[in-house]
């Protein structure tokens, strides 16, 4: 886990690390990755990955409208919106 890797994953996660915390976070990430590395020596031949403890198939439902539009309620939580849209900085020049 070097500085370059930390910079790459930080960008992928859209996070910016404060300069004075970068060193500590890099050290922490390295010790966590070393800690979980013991899994790599595990013999997992013929073991199917388990994604969900119930191993259920997602249930299907009728494709129907289940609730009324609540546009105003949802827009009201936005940091910036008008009557119809969430507002963000200009994307297209």
């Amino acid at each position: 886990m070097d500085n370059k890797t930390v910079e790459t994953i930080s960008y992928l996660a859209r996070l910016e690390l404060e300069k004075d915390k970068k060193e500590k976070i890099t050290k922490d990430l390295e010790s966590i990755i070393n800690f979980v590395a013991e899994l790599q020596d595990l013999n997992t031949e013929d073991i199917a990955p388990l994604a969900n403890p119930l191993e259920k198939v997602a249930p299907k439902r009728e494709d129907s409208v289940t609730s009324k539009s609540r546009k105003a309620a949802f827009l009201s939580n936005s940091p910036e919106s008008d009557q119809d849209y969430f507002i963000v900085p200009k994307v297209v020049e």
Partner: protein
Amino acid sequence: MSIRFKTLSELKELLEKKEISSYELVSETFKNISTSKTNSFITLDEKVALNKARDFDEGKVDGDLAGIPIAQKDLFCTKDLRTTCGSKILENFIPPYDATVVGNLSAAGSICVGKTNMDEFAMGSSNETSYYGSVRNPWDLERVPGGSSGGSAAAVSEGLVCAATGTDTGGSIRQPAALCGITGIKPTYGRASRWGMIAFASSLDQAGAFARNAEDCALLLNHICSHDSKDSTSISDERENYLDNINNDLKGKKIGIIKEFDISSLNREVQDSFEQSKRIFEALGANFVEVSMPNIKLSVPTYYVVAPAECSSNLSRFDGVKYGYRAKDVDNLEELYIKSRSEGFGDEVKRRILIGTYVLSAGFYDAYYKKAQQSRRMIKNDFVNAFSEVDVIMSPSSPSSAFKIGSKTEDPIEMYLEDLFTISSNLAGVPAMSIPHGFSDGLPIGLQLIGNYLEESNILNFAHQYQKNSDWHFKTPDLGESS
């Protein structure tokens, strides 16, 4: 009449006999909260709660929990009541809907007095990662209450409320229940709806309850658990009455002790309490069997791949656009995402997002994430095999009693090992609970009972019989001036 430390069932009886009104109960609750030193609550809802109490007193509300004040962990969405998840990024978030669990408890007539403090996005075992400050353990204000549901556990332990909700992704109900000397249960994955629970690791997250004893936990689960078509992993089995089997005889029942958990490495008092608890169950006619679970030692590393991976995906929704914190003075959309997330999330959340991003990134996916999913199946198989031999599995809930605030914040691995005994049940998805069973260094410690899939009734039965034959659950902290 002092309501502090009364159980849910006791308060229910007082209300039924009209020896106290719900208004008195709720007013007294807010009075107690105002003098509390534990920082258990992030947001209170006094006006609404008092109105609901009045409605109950006027005979307008009924239900199994009618008129009883309870607390909701601040991870559950509550309609028109701020829900922060312990994070700055949701400091001003007011959900337009109730989580299913919250709706179920309201439908039973209970009154939510407020939202309890927690580790940010439930990531932590000490409640120190909350943006709203650490919660303090009522048994010793210099110590942590455990986490992540630390506020709920401390509020019940301190007698502010008789019951509270929690969520458990790796031990977040059982470890704080143990450290605060109360009872807490996490049902089978899928038993309680996750709809309206702010997601951390979706294949591990499960809602549950805190109360003063197992009987009250059974009563709460009757309402917390339900089938919900809005949660695709919700179990559709018929709902049972968890109070029906708590008085079953334990004669001839088999309790498994995990061979690979080295109890002898723990401190003397933790070992002695464990032996003492074994003797109580033996006196009740249960037998002990050693079960080998060779893969259980992989639980903590497996969890710290699976949980951060799911967290990095779930928390990508926080981008400063539709709700939550938005950074000021940004030039473009990408900067808006980066600045909002970087200013809105705390250090532990960032650490876990970064680990998750790393283990899911191209070139590392097979070596970490796929491998962890495979070891997860091996751990699950260990539980399936063990439960073919025994009725329940017993272990300590945590390696030690509550530690000092600040003592484990420097080393993340040391903090992660707090959940050594609890994490495996989440990976397998089985139900588990913690009950108080002794003291170490003058602070409470817990006994963990793990059950087979959908056998919440069974562990509640063991816990209730234990509590009928012990008095640890009656112990309460000395609150000094704040009481």
